[in-house]
């Protein structure tokens, strides 16, 4: 078993002339919950998609569990995309069937149990579900796998604050203990206390990678406060508005 779960060396990705990631070096270990934080457009989703193999880097090397991104790494990664990709005539149980066929590590009974605790009826069609309920179903699909790496892209963006706590609780109690959870978000204050460490992305580069406790100890403030300080909007020169 490889010590490092994610190893990124000089990874860059651009869309046409627009650079999304700029020579990203990053090491992430096992058994931890990591926050991938940054303002909109800082490269969070791009990095996650590279790890999933949905995008190819322009240059650099990226490995998960010591292997290049490919079918082997995909089998070990459970990915929650930032938007829904299922047909809305399906029921949650249809999706569970699909996932059971696709992923060896999908635990059907666990998925049903999670639905119960989240108050979702798995026999309902997606079409009849609210946005928040759909997000819960997606989360169930992702967390019911026993993966090495969970990649959660904005898992709490679309739900109310009470449901957020519930979702975080679900993540905490269900992730595989040898695995790592990487959560991208800009809702830091909601998520800070569940994180072991954070990675700050700014304009496609890693500008900080440290544990939450170290940050609080060294800076005497929360990660949320530090984030606001670093990313405070700078008005463009001459732009007095």
């Amino acid at each position, binding site marked *: 078993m490889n010590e490092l779960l994610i190893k990124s060396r000089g990874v860059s990705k651009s869309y046409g002339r627009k650079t999304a990631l700029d020579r990203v070096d990053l090491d992430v270990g096992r*058994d*931890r*919950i990591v926050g991938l934080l940054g303002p909109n457009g800082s490269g969070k989703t791009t990095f996650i998609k590279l790890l999933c193999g949905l995008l190819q880097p322009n240059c650099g090397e990226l490995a998960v569990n010591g292997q290049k991104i490919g079918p082997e790494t995909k089998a070990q990664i459970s990915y929650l995309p930032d938007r829904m990709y299922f047909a809305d005539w399906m029921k949650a149980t249809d999706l569970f069937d699909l996932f059971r066929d696709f992923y060896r590590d999908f635990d059907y009974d666990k998925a049903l149990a999670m639905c119960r605790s989240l108050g979702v009826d798995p026999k309902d069609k997606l079409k009849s579900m609210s946005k928040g309920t759909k997000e819960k179903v997606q989360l169930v699909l992702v967390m019911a796998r026993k993966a090495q790496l969970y990649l959660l892209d904005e898992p709490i963006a679309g739900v109310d604050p009470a449901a957020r*706590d519930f979702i*975080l*609780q679900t993540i*905490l*109690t269900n992730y595989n*203990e040898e695995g790592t959870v990487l959560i991208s978000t800009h809702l830091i204050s909601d998520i800070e*206390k*569940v*994180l*072991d460490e954070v990675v700050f992305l700014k304009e496609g580069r890693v500008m900080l990678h440290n544990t*939450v*406790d170290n940050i*609080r*100890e060294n800076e*005497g*403030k*929360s990660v*949320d*406060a530090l984030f606001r300080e670093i990313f405070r909007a700078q008005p463009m020169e001459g732009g007095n508005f």
Partner: protein
Amino acid sequence: MEWKLTDDRPIWLQLSEQLARRIITGVYPPGSRLPSVRELASQAGVNPNTMQRALAQLEQDGLAKADRTAGRLVTQDTAVLEAARRAEAQVAINQYFDAMAELGYARVQAAELLKEENL
């Protein structure tokens, strides 16, 4: 009992203080088994690794000890418990003096006022 976490200090430290307080006040009685790491982490809504660190601190302070089989037991050493209670009391006393100093009372005056309270 609620878990209260503030922004200015490491989370594990705050958790370990609150666990210690629960032991001192008898929420977790001497000799009893503490809830598991996962259970406590879930209650407080924090990461299990963070709770683990808080519990390790309790062990270091002698308030809890790892059991041979599994989990942790609250200490039965009354001297250790009493010392921890005294330390907590000292914190409360200092807070009183600080608050009074802010109002302009010297420590002696503050102590006098306390004596005048109907006890």
